[in-house]
């Protein structure tokens, strides 16, 4: 299991806006993003950075608070910077986060694939 030093998360919002400043949790422990550029209004993109410096089993974007409207996410691009390896990027598709859900965006480093 790699040690995740830092990550960058680029979230493009779909039709429904999200929370003003989202937060995240690593292995159930809540933390705040180091920086946030952009916004979560419909059609807009927000770029978030975090520095967990730990070994993630789960790494989640916390969904809207109780009673808040659902957040329509169109796409996510996550770049993970782990110790002792090159950074890698994973692209994810559409998903809707409501006030009862968190989005797990942790992805292990992809295993190398080669042609035979």
């Amino acid at each position, binding site marked *: *299991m790699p040690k995740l030093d830092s990550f960058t998360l680029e979230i493009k919002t779909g039709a429904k806006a999200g929370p003003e400043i989202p*937060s995240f*949790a690593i*292995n*159930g422990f*809540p*933390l*705040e993003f180091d920086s946030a550029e952009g916004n979560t209004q419909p059609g807009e993109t927000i770029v978030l950075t975090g520095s967990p410096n730990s070994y993630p*089993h*789960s790494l*989640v974007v*916390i*969904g809207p*608070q*109780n009673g808040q409207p659902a957040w329509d*996410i169109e*796409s*996510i691009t996550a770049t993970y910077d782990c110790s002792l390896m090159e950074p890698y990027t*994973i*692209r*994810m*598709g*559409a*998903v809707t*986060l409501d*006030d*009862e*859900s*968190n*989005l*797990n*965006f*942790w*992805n292990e480093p992809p*295993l*190398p*694939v*080669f*042609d*035979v």
Partner: protein
Amino acid sequence: MPTWFKKVFNDDVAKATSPGVPASNGADAEVEKPVPVAPPTVDKPALGQPDTTEFEEPVKPKLRKIIHAPIIMDEEEQSSWSENIAIKARVEADRMTCVFMVDRPVLEGLSAWFPQPSYAEESSPLGKQLFAIEGIGAVLLHGMTVTIGMTDLCDRPWQELSVEIGQVIRAYLKTGEDTITQSFRDNIPPEDEIHLKLQACVDMEINPGIAAHSGVVTLERIVGNSVYLVMGGGCQGCAASEITLRQGIHNTFRNAVPQIGGIFDVTDHSAGSNPFYSELPAGMG
């Protein structure tokens, strides 16, 4: 002070429980004298009388469900399958196993597991040819994949071994013949029978064994002779769950029904109400 610290130890609580702490550290702030606080009075039952005080049931925080977004493959990766038999290989994290992904079915609807050459001798012509390659210790045929296990003594790198494996798979699939024999197919029990026998293993052997770790295994489904299971309770999210699966559950299942093929863990190890690590309850964060 980090924001999370404030959430846990918010100012109001800190002030209420520290009567001697001044309201501000500024130079002009008036220093308040500590005010003695009387302990709260509680009506205690008379000596010898039972305590009938009713306590409110604590409200359990609502657990949030964990969702995943679909991963999007690169277009280049998707379009690289050619009209010829294209094969891609992926060495698994244990370095002892390599999955060969073929662009067409190898074995549809079933899976075939050969842990040593003798198993494939009469059951799978493709398996038999693969075992002829030096260093191959196990073969699993399933859907559009061929999973190869290396022997413990093999020191050949996968890059070298995979060229030979690819040639064998490609040459065999071009013949158009079935990858397993008809007698092997005929010997596979129906799904209901497999389910019944494996459920007995789960109930009588596996779950009592892992109960000490608050673990529980559930048979999710049987497709053909492939087994899909879910590991819950303490097994969910536990780093040792794969060892439990490979060294314990696999052997138990294969002893009970030797004809089963692939055994797949379909647990979402990042979700659940009681995994080894807990997710945030709704409303927190």
